[in-house]
């Protein structure tokens, strides 16, 4: 079943048809979401009432567009803030982890490595509740001891950030480790021979080599955080990130406003993803 092996014509057509159907299946839901963002009606469904930009730019009820809808805009801001924090934190820890596992031999290394992988096989919702439970145990403990109520340990942005960080760090570690493994240690030794101290050698030789992987990890972490739902759902407080805000609206019934937000999300994340892919191809 490779091109060099002759196959019957009907088999090839059947196979090609199956693959085409598969891609139709992939594209269908997203296309539908995108198209109905332009429907001039209160509902993202048939009948088609004509084309409109109102769900993006509309200023008056009943068609308030994305760019004038404060609730949505605020939640985009919240999501971006959370995603930025998570991306920076997870790439920092991911980098130190990569150096640790790549450069040192120590007792318990294999065990720690498996432990490091675990967050990937824990369901997101369980990660969420475990962080929720522990932080409230801490908060209650502090209250019992000193009568101080630490708001930061109650559901809210800090917990959302920590919850997402707890598993995105694993991915950042894997991405950065993969690149560090390809690094030629003799380059660093050459820098040391030329009189650089260890820190300078790492800063001027190793880190620039790692930069593409670190930037890649930042983008991946940002996207994963922005789109995370399960962990966030359990830890969210009063200011909801975008996915949660959209979920709440979707439960109440949807208007094409949600389609417009979704379309912008799609454009944004595919742009980021494409940039990442092109960037990595070059690097």
């Amino acid at each position, binding site marked *: 079943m490779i*091109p060099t092996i002759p196959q019957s014509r009907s088999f090839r057509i059947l196979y090609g048809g199956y693959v085409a159907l598969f891609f139709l299946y992939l594209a269908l839901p997203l296309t539908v979401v995108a198209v109905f963002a332009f429907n001039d009606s209160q509902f993202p469904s048939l009948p088609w009432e004509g084309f409109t930009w109102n769900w993006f730019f509309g200023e008056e009820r009943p068609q308030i567009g994305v760019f004038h809808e404060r609730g949505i805009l605020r939640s985009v801001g919240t999501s971006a803030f959370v995603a930025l924090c998570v991306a920076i934190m997870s790439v920092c820890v991911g980098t130190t982890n990569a150096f640790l596992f790549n450069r040192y031999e120590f007792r318990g290394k294999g065990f720690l490595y498996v432990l490091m992988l675990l967050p990937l096989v824990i369901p997101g919702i*369980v990660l969420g509740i475990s962080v929720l439970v522990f932080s409230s145990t801490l908060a209650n403990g502090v209250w019992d001891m000193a009568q101080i109520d630490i708001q930061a340990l109650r559901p809210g942005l800090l917990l959302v950030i920590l919850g997402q960080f707890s598993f995105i760090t694993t991915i950042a570690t894997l991405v950065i480790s993969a690149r560090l493994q390809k690094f030629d240690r003799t380059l660093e030794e050459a820098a040391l021979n030329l009189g650089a101290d*260890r820190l300078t050698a790492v800063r001027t030789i190793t880190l620039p080599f790692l930069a593409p992987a670190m930037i890649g990890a930042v983008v991946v972490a940002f996207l994963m955080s922005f789109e995370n739902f399960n962990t966030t759902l359990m830890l969210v407080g009063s200011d909801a990130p975008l996915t949660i805000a959209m979920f709440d609206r979707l439960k109440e019934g949807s208007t094409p406003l949600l389609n417009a937000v979704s379309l912008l999300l799609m454009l944004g994340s595919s742009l980021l993803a494409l940039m990442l892919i092109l960037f990595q191809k070059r690097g």
Partner: protein
Amino acid sequence: MRSQSRITFYLLLTPLVLWLGLLIIIPHIDMLLISLRERISFGVYETSLAQYEKALTEPLYLRTFWRTAVMSVLATALTLMIAFPVSYYIAKMAKGRLQQVLFLLCLIPFYVSELVRTFGWMILLRETGLVSNLLQWVGLADRPIELLYTDATMMVGLVYTSMLFMVVPLVTTLESLDDSVIEAGYDLGGSGLSVLREIIIPHAMPGIVSGCIVVFMLSLGNYLTPTMLGGKDSLWFTEMIYNQFIVRSNWELGAAFGFMLLVLSSVIVWGMLWLTGRTLKETMG
């Protein structure tokens, strides 16, 4: 180790230990402890297995637990069966530019939030949705039909959501299979089926295992798809965890549910690794 390198070692070890300790290990131990207590009166708790007893004797809880497990296995199997021919096509049949474009097309939908994908299925399948309208227009139905809120719809959504995590590892392992090996299989008189069974599938095994593990995990832990696409009867275990924690504020029972889900997923993941003789490190790392 020299003293300087020793200091660096501990500096590098600290973030790892803090992260795993404070965000993974201790929270899970805490969750276990909470699931093992029973509320006697206000602020008074006693250690007991009452929560697990409740979870294992209440028919609704137990049924949902097994249903979630079985449906997740089913979703994983379906995803594998749908993804395998496509991955093979991308890895072995398509060449050059087409191959890259097809692979990219597979990736892009998954950079989009799961919420958006689920929303797309709702628009397609609801009573006033596109599919219902299409069926009426063709004449296969004489009034609007509700296609949402059934197990089948939920399955469509689950398979869709985790497709990428099957396609990518499959394409990667299949690409590493040398064409000449397949040709040799045919030269030695193998039929298409026997080549598939004895050469291609064994070679793709690492990809199959890691794809299945990830897809199973994602299905088991999915909340959105069962909530939005599934019906009243297709309660998912994650929904019960959410209900106990957020709606009923019964953290003890919720923690017990969480632990049951964790144990179930670990058992199946380790079982799959053990059956195929692989380690977590090889599969994920």
